[in-house]
Structure formats: C-alpha cells, structure tokens
C-alpha cells in the first residue's frame, strides 16, 4: 500500500501543471452548451493542443497512474473535458487499437488524436435498454458492403460526428450475443438521419439515429463478423474503468463550494446539513481512494480495468445524486431556480443510476461476477 508517486510521475505532474498554467489562459471562450458546431470546434481545438504538447495519447499509451494524474490535474486546473472526443478517445479508439487491422488503425486513430475527426456511439436502441444484446438494427451483406437499417438512441454529439461506432445484427438466427458485428459508420452516408433528443434537463445533448438502408463497406467492420459482442465488451470495460476520475475530482471541488455557500447563507449552522456534507465528503474521498486502487490493479494487470468498476459506479452514481440533493438543501428555495448553479446538474444526475448499466444491472454484475452467486432473475 503506497500512495506516493515515483520521481518520474512527479515530474510528469509538474510538467503538466506548468503546461496547463501556460496554456489555459490562451483558450478561446467556452461555447454555448447548445452550439454544437462551436462545441465541436472548441473540443477538437483543445485536443489538438494536447496532441501538439505530447498529451494527445495520454488515454492510450500512458500508464494508468499517469492517466490518473492527467485527469486529476486537468480537472483541478479547470481544463476542458474530452467533450466531443469522448467516444473517439475512450471508446472507439481503444477498440480499434485493440481489435483493428493495421490499415484500420492507420486510417482512424491519428485523426482522433489530432482532434480532426469526431466519433459518436450507436449502441443503445429504444427496445434494447439494459438488455443491449437484444439489439435489432440489421445489417445484410450485399457484395462488399452491409446494408444497415434500424434505429439507435442516446447518441451524443451525433450532429457533429464524422464517424459512428455501430453495433448491428449480422446473423438474426444466432443466439443473442453471437450475431452482432461492430461497424464504423460514416455519418454523412446516405440514409443516416439524426434527430435531437430532448432530455428532462431541457437540453439536447443526445440524439436519435435513424438508419435506412445505409451502405457500410465490409472493410469498415472491426473484428470478425458476428464477433462484435466481444469487441464491444473491450470498449465497455474501458468505460467502466477510470472514466470517472475527473468526475470524482469535480465532486470534491463541488463539496468545497457547497460548504462555502452554506457558510454564507447560514445553512451551515444546521448540524444535520453540516454532517450530511461531512459524510458526503468522506464518501467522495473514499471513492477517490477506490479509484486509485482500481488504477493500481489495472496497472498490475496490464492496463485492463477490473470488476472494481462496477463497485465504483454503483456507489458513485448514488453518492453523486445525494450530493445534489444536499446542494438543494443548501440552496433552499433557490434549488427551484435553474438559473442557479448545480440545479441543471442535479437534473442531469438523475441519469447516473440508469445510463451505462442501471444500478439494478450493476448489482447483478457484482453479485454474479464478483460474488459468484448464481444467474437468475
């Protein structure tokens, strides 16, 4: 058990911190949240700066500890998130890197790292929510192309993406997990329609994707035909690994802001609320430590995040919802004002126990895969 860093890592941190301090003041102003092209340009511009400074590859090639340091320092400095590059850098990119042919890696990876091309994700379907393997979007082989028809949902950045990592059913006769393939879809291909999807927070950060006989070259399939489920699991394990590091750092910063606001508006004098904030601070500190442990384990096992991700996500998603409930109590009547900080975030946080595997599904995973309890219902 050691929480100290090597000299090399400390140097990495110091250099990064110095670079961030120099670079951030020169960033353009943040675009409006509803200005999608503006957001794309901003996020890609940031990725290009990272690339030019030698940090473009940090999610792929750096050690888990370096990645942890990178996420911690960028969040602490208030640097931009991955934003529009999320899928490219953390989902599709790693998948192509692990499973693609040399030609595919050559074609797709560099543009992502340079912030030239944006990817989105076409996994979820309206009728296949938690049960991803029941997806119905069909791809029928026609010469050197697949003809794809179906509907996807919860696709973020779809309006401005160049590519979509798409799961399709290539063998309707095979058992659920067996007939699925992974395709790279050009978003400007004929037959692709994007419709913005409004969430309960009032924003349109997601979209629905309608695919009507869209032709995708067979050469754009990553992995073997009908082997897409396994290919996908590689991607998902990245998502459940260290993807939340920045969020935990953000929550700890939010707790400090809450305490400051509470001291200003007098709610800090209520011991019930004060202890609740204390208890939440303890919990997020522990979640931060749990992340460090998960990273230690990933590092020891060659970079593959373990089942610790499900344990983390279960507690984190509920803790973050509780954090915004506490924020609402600090704000009192102002919690009803979407013009005040935190209240829109509170609405967004309602999806945390649902997205990327509901808490119910996560509990199944923990019970079956970690505790070894029998599959059942």
């Amino acid at each position, binding site marked *: 058990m050691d929480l100290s860093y090597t000299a090399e890592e400390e140097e990495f941190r110091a250099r990064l911190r110095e670079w961030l301090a120099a670079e951030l003041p020169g960033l353009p102003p943040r675009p409006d949240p509803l200005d999608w092209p503006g957001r794309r340009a901003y996020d890609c511009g940031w990725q290009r700066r990272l690339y030019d400074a030698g940090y473009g590859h940090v999610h792929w090639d750096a050690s888990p500890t370096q990645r942890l340091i990178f996420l911690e320092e960028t969040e602490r400095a208030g640097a931009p998130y991955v934003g529009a590059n999320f899928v490219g850098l953390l989902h599709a990119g790693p998948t192509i890197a692990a499973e693609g042919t040399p030609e595919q890696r050559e074609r797709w990876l560099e543009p992502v790292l340079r912030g030239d091309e944006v990817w989105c994700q076409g996994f979820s379907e309206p009728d296949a929510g938690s049960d991803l393997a029941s997806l119905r979007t069909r791809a029928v082989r026609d010469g050197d192309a697949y003809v794809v028809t179906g509907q996807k949902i919860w696709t973020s950045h779809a309006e401005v993406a160049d590519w979509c990592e798409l799961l399709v059913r290539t063998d309707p006769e095979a058992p659920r997990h067996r007939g699925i393939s992974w395709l790279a879809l050009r978003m400007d291909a004929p037959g692709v329609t994007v419709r913005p999807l409004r969430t309960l927070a009032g924003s349109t950060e997601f979209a629905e994707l309608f695919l009507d006989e869209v032709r995708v070259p067979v050469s754009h399939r990553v992995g073997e035909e009908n082997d897409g489920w396994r290919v996908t699991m590689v991607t998902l394990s990245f998502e459940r690994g260290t993807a939340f590091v920045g969020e935990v750092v953000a929550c700890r910063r939010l707790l400090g802001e809450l305490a400051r606001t509470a001291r200003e508006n007098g709610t800090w004098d209520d011991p019930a609320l004060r202890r*609740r904030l204390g208890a939440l601070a303890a919990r997020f*500190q*522990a979640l931060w430590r749990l992340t460090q442990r998960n990273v230690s384990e990933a590092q020891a096992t060659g970079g593959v995040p373990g089942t610790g991700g499900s344990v983390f996500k279960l507690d984190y998603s509920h803790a973050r919802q509780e954090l915004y409930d506490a924020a609402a109590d600090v704000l009192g009547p102002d919690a009803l004002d979407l013009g005040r900080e935190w209240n829109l975030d509170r609405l967004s946080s309602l999806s945390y126990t649902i997205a990327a595997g509901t808490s119910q599904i996560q509990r199944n995973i923990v019970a079956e895969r970690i505790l070894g309890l029998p599959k059942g219902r």
Partner: protein
Amino acid sequence: MTGAVDFRPNEDQRDLRRGIRELLAGRFGREALRAAVDGPGRVDRGLWKELGEAGFFALRLPEEEGGVGLGLPEAVLLFEEAGRALLPGPLVATHLAAGAVEGAAEGLTVVTEVSPEGLVPWLDAADVVRGDAAGAVPLRSVDPLTPLHRAPRTGRLSAGAVEAALLTAAEQVGTAAWCTDAAVAHAGRREQFGQVIGGFQAVKHLCAGMLVRTEVARAAVQAAAVTADRVEIAGAKLLADEAAVANARDCLQVHGGMGFTWEADVHLHLKRAWVRAALVLPGAKAAEEVASAL
C-alpha cells in the same frame, strides 16, 4: 509503464496478513469463539502472548526498541483480520500502549483505556488502565464478548484516540467483510421455493450492496492508514461504522430466522459493530470532523 502509486498490499504486507489469519484460524476458530461467548469476560492470556510473539502489539515499535518497525498500513491489515475473527480483548488499547506500558508490546500486559466517549472495555480483566476510570460503573454489555464500564465522558480526541479510531475502523471493515462472505455463503446454500436463495434478485442485490460498502470502507481505511491524516481517518471511521452495522443487519436479513438465533454468529458481529461505533468517534462526531475541514 511502471508506477509507484500501488495501493494494493505488497508482498510483505500480504504475508503479514496471511500469518495473522492463520494464527487466528488455528487459535481462535469457531469453537474458541463460542467458548468465549459461553464464558465471557476473560482474556485468553496464552493467546494474548502468542499475539505478542507474532508482533501484533509491537508492530509499530521501532526495531531498535524490540518492535517490528512497521506502520499504520500494516496495522490496519492486522486489525481487519482481528475484526473478521471477532477476537475479544482490548486489542487497540494494548497495541497503542506498546512501548509506553511495560509488557504490552510482548502481550504480557493487558492494557485498556477510557474511551473519549466515557466507555471502558475490559476494565476488570485489564492489568493497566489508561485514563481516569475512577467511579466507572459496569454496564450489562450488549456484546457478550466485550465487558463494558461507564466513566465520565472526556470528549477530547487525543492523538492516540485518532489512531484508536483508525484501528477500530479497520476492525469494522473486518466485520463488514465477514458479513458479506457469510451472507454469500448462506445464499449459495440455502434453498427456498425450489432454488438457492442467492438466485433471487432481492438477495443478490443485498449481497452486492454489502460488497460495495465493504470495498468503499476498506479503501478509505487503508488510504487513511497511509496518510495518517486526521480528517481522512474520521471519514474512514464513519464509512467503516456504517458498513459494519449495515452489513451485519443485511447478513441477518439474508439468514432469515436462522440469523435470529443465538447459535448463529451474525448477532455477535452486529453487537460488536455497535460497540466499536460508540467507543471512539461515533457517527455524528466523525461527520463533524470531516465537515470542519471543508
């Protein structure tokens, strides 16, 4: 691609943990536990001495003073094992007295201490009492394995009390982990409605929740042992208390009627978890301590 933030126990630490686990399995297995329940209030001096020889009490004394020369990270591993085994006796106070009270390090002297909350465990059985236990009156202790007296509350949280809170939290993690294991084992064995109950989502999800609490609390305790930070220790105590009590209750629920019997061990863990939670830095105080640093 190597990094030193390795939060996992290293090989020496794993060996140490394995050693104490084997010692406890051999010397304080289930029969010894139930014998202690049936004849409570006595410290097993032979076992105490063996613990001393294994370095349980002298663990953090410098080698030049005859100790093992290790630190809090190793100590929390040992105390988690002690908590898992429900080992009785004033382990924390004796460990903290090593080097200050003669014979404590070797397991020859049994030391207890008046807790900041005014509770004194094992007063009659201890050789040495630290703190002012004058006028302490006996309670009918809820935990058959922890005799208790009440003395006036001091409220002060000395530096020693902060370490006591951490080691007590480590014992709570042991209870949380034992309860998870016991619930999973029972759920995988007990049949109802034609299948093992571990196949029912309601039971599975209880067990999953227990594991999550254990892992979060363990990460908190181990990190607090590394940093020895007062606030981080308070947070770890809070999470470990909650994990131990909640897991013991869920374990009892998974066991159903069987868990409600005296013969089942789960109630011993619940009662001990209550005692440990109350002894030092109870919930509200721990939460205030963490809040004060915000």
